[in-house]
């Protein structure tokens, strides 16, 4: 309860400061609209914001699911085979050296202006953090436990299933929490490059028409969506338990 009070207090202070800057400087609303004006724009355009939020949320959630499944599968494969790990890890690190944002135009070219290119973008941006976090957890099982499993003559498959994966679930949870924050970035960048729907598209459209208040309203909607997603993933991963 105290924490909620602190957060609300900080938000109220930030809004007050923002409103104060607008009043004192007299900055035009197309440069920096007041919080009140942004709130008005949000209410007036609620239907269009909701419609575009739904599109972005769909892209993000699909990206999160596909990215998590593919990242987790890769981590399990890498943890199962030292040879595969030696071959694939340098490749994975190299792909991280390529800015994912730079790929957005190519992805739009390959997958079109629809939802697919944005989902692929979100998948690409979260794939590495999920793989890396889960792989770390899978390979950090205490040596004593693995020795015990060896003396029990456990099979590789069962050791992975019954010891390594449960042990690594909290690490996967950490990766997922990061992914929940990164995935919207991927989707929005995809929308900026080429889209006809989504919050990124709406922000670009509002900006082009000097509707800065609508742009801010879209931006806050995106931030709230990301926070809610992070909160949901945090709640879900809390049940994964800690070893």
């Amino acid at each position, binding site marked *: 309860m105290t924490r909620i009070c602190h957060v609300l207090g900080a938000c109220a202070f930030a809004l007050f400061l923002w409103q104060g800057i607008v009043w004192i400087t007299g900055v035009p609303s197309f440069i920096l609209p007041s919080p009140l004006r942004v709130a008005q724009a949000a209410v007036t355009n609620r239907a269009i914001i909701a419609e575009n939020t739904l599109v972005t949320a769909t892209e993000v959630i699909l990206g999160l699911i596909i990215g998590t499944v593919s990242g987790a599968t890769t981590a399990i494969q890498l943890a199962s085979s030292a040879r595969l790990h030696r071959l694939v890890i340098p490749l994975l690190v190299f792909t991280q050296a390529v800015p994912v944002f730079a790929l957005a135009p190519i992805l739009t070219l390959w997958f079109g202006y629809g939802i697919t290119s944005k989902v692929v973008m979100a998948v690409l941006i979260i794939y590495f953090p999920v793989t890396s976090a889960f792989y770390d957890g899978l390979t950090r099982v205490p040596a004593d436990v693995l020795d015990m499993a*060896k003396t029990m*003559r456990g099979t590789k498959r069962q050791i992975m299933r019954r010891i390594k994966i449960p042990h690594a679930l909290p690490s996967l949870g950490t990766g997922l929490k990061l992914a929940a924050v990164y995935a919207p970035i991927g989707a929005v960048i995809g929308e900026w490059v080429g889209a006809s729907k989504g919050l990124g598209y709406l922000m670009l459209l509002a900006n082009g028409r000097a509707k800065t208040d609508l742009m801010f309203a879209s931006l806050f909607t995106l931030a709230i969506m990301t926070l809610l997603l992070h909160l949901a993933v945090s709640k879900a991963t809390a049940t994964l338990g800690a070893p």
Partner: protein
Amino acid sequence: MTQAPAIHVRGTHEVDGVRQFGPLDVRMPAGKWTCILGRSGVGKSTLLRLIAGLTTAGEFDGHITTSDAGTLEGRVTVMAQSDLLLPWLSVLENTVLGARLRGEDPDMKKAQGLLDRVGLSGHLDKRPNALSGGMRQRTALARTLMEDRPIALLDEPFSALDASTRADMQELAAEVLAAKTVLLVTHDPAEAVRLGHQITVLTPDAAQTWPTLHIPPIRDQYAPATVGCQAGLLAHLREMR
């Protein structure tokens, strides 16, 4: 369970080209408790790992054989200082872990019977974090028994327990591991004198056999003869430093 064999270890263990112990010649009698003592770093746990078929920090040049000429693989179970219970599994599921890891259907009735024997029948569904240190080690003991192997290797399994729980656990282990060939690595002369049919003091150069009492284990820790033997063993260990 097959008949417990005697174990014979001969050889030298080197770490990065530096001899840790050996040439060594240790015999562990069949169906008896052999307690290994020695200063830290002399290689007691290494010896245990070699018998268990686990990797060590160095290279072993020698032979480990059994009295029945059979292989050690699949006939050894290990109990460590840490209970190694998996925190996400219940007491019962931790007990049957070996069968699960081999992809077999575990014998739940047998596991329940063993847990009853170690006094945990009322705690089958509890997670390890809900248990005391002694209860956790009893679960680890039940898991060791569940493997039903003729050779049990114990690496200081009672050292983290309080004195009274340790005494209880020693009695319980001696009872339930009877007829197995047991190797107990310990730092505690009292524990060795209380439990050992044979006491071996490991040094970098050799494995010395310390004379045990004629009374069979488990020995009364307060009997004058036991106390005298402990004192003699402790004095010998101190002289080695």
